[in-house]
């Protein structure tokens, strides 16, 4: 996993620079997301890994699948990936691209997992407090996990703020 993202970094950086220059970050973001979705398909990964499928065949196949999703630069990008045998990195490139984009636009993705669904009000409160904590605008995505019993876990990149009952019980267990 870590090695893949190391390999994906130069591609993501290059794409991001082009995107910023041509002011089309959101277009590129969609393109990369689509490409990564394609590459995560089981049949697709099998085809990519199959040595019998030639580079030309692969290029045509992917361009056919993507068709309208790709602009001229996008087509070139896919060709480059096929040529360098790095198609498999598409999900990592997309992920890194999003990270660069978030950093560039000055917000951070925060994933909040809670035991019960959050109301709009609560989400707003989270947004303001987390903004203070992290010093950046936050983009909140939420999910529900009953195993937390109560409270929430907020994840922003590597940082985790654990305010769940489960986490507190674990802390207590350690103390005893």
């Amino acid at each position, binding site marked *: *996993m870590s*090695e893949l993202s190391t390999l994906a970094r130069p591609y993501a950086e290059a794409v991001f620079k082009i995107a910023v220059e041509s002011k089309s970050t959101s277009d590129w973001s969609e393109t990369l997301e689509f490409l990564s979705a394609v590459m995560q398909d089981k049949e697709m990964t099998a085809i990519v890994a199959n040595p019998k499928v030639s580079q030309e065949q692969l290029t045509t196949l992917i361009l056919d699948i993507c068709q309208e999703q790709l602009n001229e630069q996008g087509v070139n990008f896919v060709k480059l990936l096929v040529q360098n045998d790095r198609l498999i990195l598409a999900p990592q490139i997309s992920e890194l691209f999003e990270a660069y984009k978030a950093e560039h636009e000055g917000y951070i993705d925060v994933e909040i997992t809670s035991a019960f669904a959050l109301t709009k009000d609560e989400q707003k409160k989270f947004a303001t407090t987390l903004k203070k904590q992290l010093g950046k605008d936050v983009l909140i995505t939420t999910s529900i996990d009953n195993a937390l019993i109560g409270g929430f876990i907020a994840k922003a990149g*590597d940082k*985790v*703020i654990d*305010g769940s009952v489960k986490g507190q019980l674990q*802390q207590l267990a350690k103390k005893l």
Partner: protein
Amino acid sequence: MQLNPSEISDLIKKKIENFDVSVEAHTEGTVVSITDGIITVHGLSEAMQGEMLEFPDNTFGMALNLERDSVGVVMLGAYQHITEGDTVKCTGKILEVPVGEALLGRVVDSLGNPIDGKGAIATTETAPVEKIAPGVIARQSVDQPVQLGLKSIDSMIPVGRGQRELIIGDRQTGKTAIAVDAIINQKNTGVKCIYVAIGQKRSSIANLVRKLEEHDALAHTIIVVASASESAALQFIAPYSGCSMGEFFRDKGEDALIIYDDLTKQAWAYRQMSLLLRRPPGREAYPGDVFYIHSRLLERASRINVAEVEKLTKGKVKGKTGSLTALPIIETQGGDVSAFVPTNVISITDGQIFLESDLFNSGIRPAVNAGLSVSRVGGAAQTKIIKKLGGGIRLDLAQYRELAAFAQFASDLDESTRKQIERGQRVTELMKQDQYSPMSVAEMGVSLHAANAGFLDDLDVAKVRDFEAALQSYMKSEEADLMQKINDTGDYSDEIKKGIQSAIETFIKTSSW
């Protein structure tokens, strides 16, 4: 200890009541790969070099390789239950071990957990495993002796408090024996001992503990064990843990003696870790910083001055200096001291005690090679009596070595050469000493005086040791006051000199050996 159930539930109740419900913020990562005790973790962007990382089920690892996308972690202890995808938390702490008086008399592992079955260790103090050595201003020169209790070493290769003296030799040459004798001899001197066993068999450690117990020497000793069956990471950090435990005594104005048995195995453990972490191998496949692992460790053995002790104890201890003396042990292969690790450690330490298998096999035990062994700073710390008498012994042996090759032509040699050879043979014989029988300053003084004054010259070489033993027991029973005086003052005044001289003369008249 008997505990009734209500007490336990009370205890738990109290803990729960005092439990502070807080929101915990930390940095997290995920396990990517596990190979031979090395775990690669993705994420953990804020991990520090050497930080403790928490894995599931209360297991810990130490972050060693910080890379852009991943962190290389060595596991401290078992890691079989960890699987790919597990979460890893930063603790924000550098590895720490418990320190304090309560550790004396105990056997602990590299992390300070007791392994002698005597229950928990009653100490709350901890200290980081890796510390920077005291600075130049904090130090004081070495001027007090550590008596190892061995004639050959204390007279010719003296060790001072705060010195680093290497014990080097092949396998089976009595390196550990010297260390153990040194520990036994610190009984009643106030010097605390720490014995760090690295990569040794558990059975030999058990033997050593038993021997120390037999000689009443365990009470002032901490034994830190990273046996051969423990992970490379634990073997690597064991000396640093032991050193932190020793520094506790040094920093409060006491004297401590630490023995690293042996640093060769620690270097091996570090080499294993480094290769698995894919660090580039250098000479003998050791990584580039193998010199630094030993130099930073041995630099922590030092003598600190009164002002520093006062500062460290916040004014509680005044007018006392503290010291940590180190006796690192290095095992050579086939007497090769020019291998990588031996040369490194020789250059770091303040001298070495060189043991040879040839000497050992020819019955000279301790098998100290007096020519190659040196002590660069110990001379300033030697007791006066040993210093005065030891010089003669050193000279006798040096002259003997030069002439020893001619010894077989004894009959054809001139008078003075023959005399020198004979003196040398007797002094060599006198330098032999049994294991577990360290000698006091006075006992040594008497033996050395007997050699210097020529009392041994008329004896048969084979009789020298019997003569010495009988002389010692005579001195003990008949001249106890004189012996006590020498032990107390350490002086070699005319009065003491005359006292010893006349005592030996009287003893010889009894011909009781």
